[in-house]
């Protein structure tokens, strides 16, 4: 698949319900990095085992095991968040598989082109949604989430719509348009040069 913007947004879609708080975004980002690390390790193991056609299936089982391991670690570190985010750790693994499948070669040669830009995008997406939807910024803690009020009086005049899934898809649309606009501008500048 060549259209990375579309693939990025597609990978973000399963995480839309959870990427509503920066605290959640941070947890899912750590999960994403964990999958990247364990994914590389498992791929190296599979390469050494040379199991033939069974290779991709072993990798999938490995990613599923790594997602379960992450869920258990989350239960240990942030027990309350593990109840709300348990399912989304597995959806993050699904998003990771989507991103890796965009450009198999980049992961193989270590450039990680589609995977690494996804991490700041996920963080920014959840931070913007929380700021616009709740007027706060939050961090994960052992007892849940800790919220800092950034926009005072948000309860009275704030627009909670941006914190909802519908608002998230509007934001995704704006993000897709901005990325496309920037790409077209860069393309026309290159043509004129």
């Amino acid at each position, binding site marked *: 698949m060549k259209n990375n913007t579309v693939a990025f947004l597609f990978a973000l879609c399963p995480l839309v319900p959870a990427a509503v708080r920066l605290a959640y975004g941070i947890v899912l980002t750590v999960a994403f990095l964990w999958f990247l690390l364990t994914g590389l390790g498992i791929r190296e193991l599979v390469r050494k085992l040379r199991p033939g056609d069974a290779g991709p299936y072993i990798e999938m089982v490995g990613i599923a095991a790594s997602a379960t391991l992450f869920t258990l670690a989350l239960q*240990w570190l942030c027990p309350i968040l593990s109840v709300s985010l348990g399912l989304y750790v597995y959806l993050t693994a699904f998003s990771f598989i989507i991103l890796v499948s965009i450009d198999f070669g980049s992961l193989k040669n270590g450039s990680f082109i589609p995977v690494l830009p996804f991490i700041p995008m996920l963080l920014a997406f959840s931070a913007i949604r929380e700021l616009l939807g709740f007027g706060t910024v939050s961090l994960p803690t*052992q007892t*849940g989430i800790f919220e800092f009020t950034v926009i005072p009086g948000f309860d009275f005049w704030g627009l909670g719509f941006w914190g909802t899934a519908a608002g998230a898809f509007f934001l995704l649309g704006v993000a897709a348009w901005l990325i496309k606009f920037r790409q077209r501008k860069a393309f026309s500048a290159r043509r004129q040069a």
Partner: protein
Amino acid sequence: MSEPTKSMKPAGLTILLFFAFFLALAGAHFATEAKAEAGIRAGAQDTLAAWKENAPKLGDRLQVKKTGWSYAWLFRTGKKGGPNEGTVYVLRITGNSGPYTGVFYRDKKGEATFCGLAGVRGRDASKYGISSRIVNMWIERIERMDAPKDSKK
């Protein structure tokens, strides 16, 4: 090395790898379970304390068969036949603005009540996108369930 023995080697190593996954997961489960339960228990107890004075105290952890992952964290409250006998449900509830940890209490008559959200500031669940429609849906689900009987311990 003969041809069949050669082809058996990757298969054996793959089985070994799967066994290593199993061991790692089982080890991690046993290592984390006690702390996870203590954390969830403390969060649920705080929510119950904010919900009402003389809130029921959490007892043994329970499990209800064939109800799936959503109902993994259930706790018995009060003594059998006592005024606070019931069950506390700690569940993931997804509202208009993301998933949160909801705490419900079901009394011995089988009537369920929403006690609040665990791990967040304040008691107003609607601020977090949890509308009364969503709360009622969960209350109906809990009330439809069989009363939990099997103790995990």
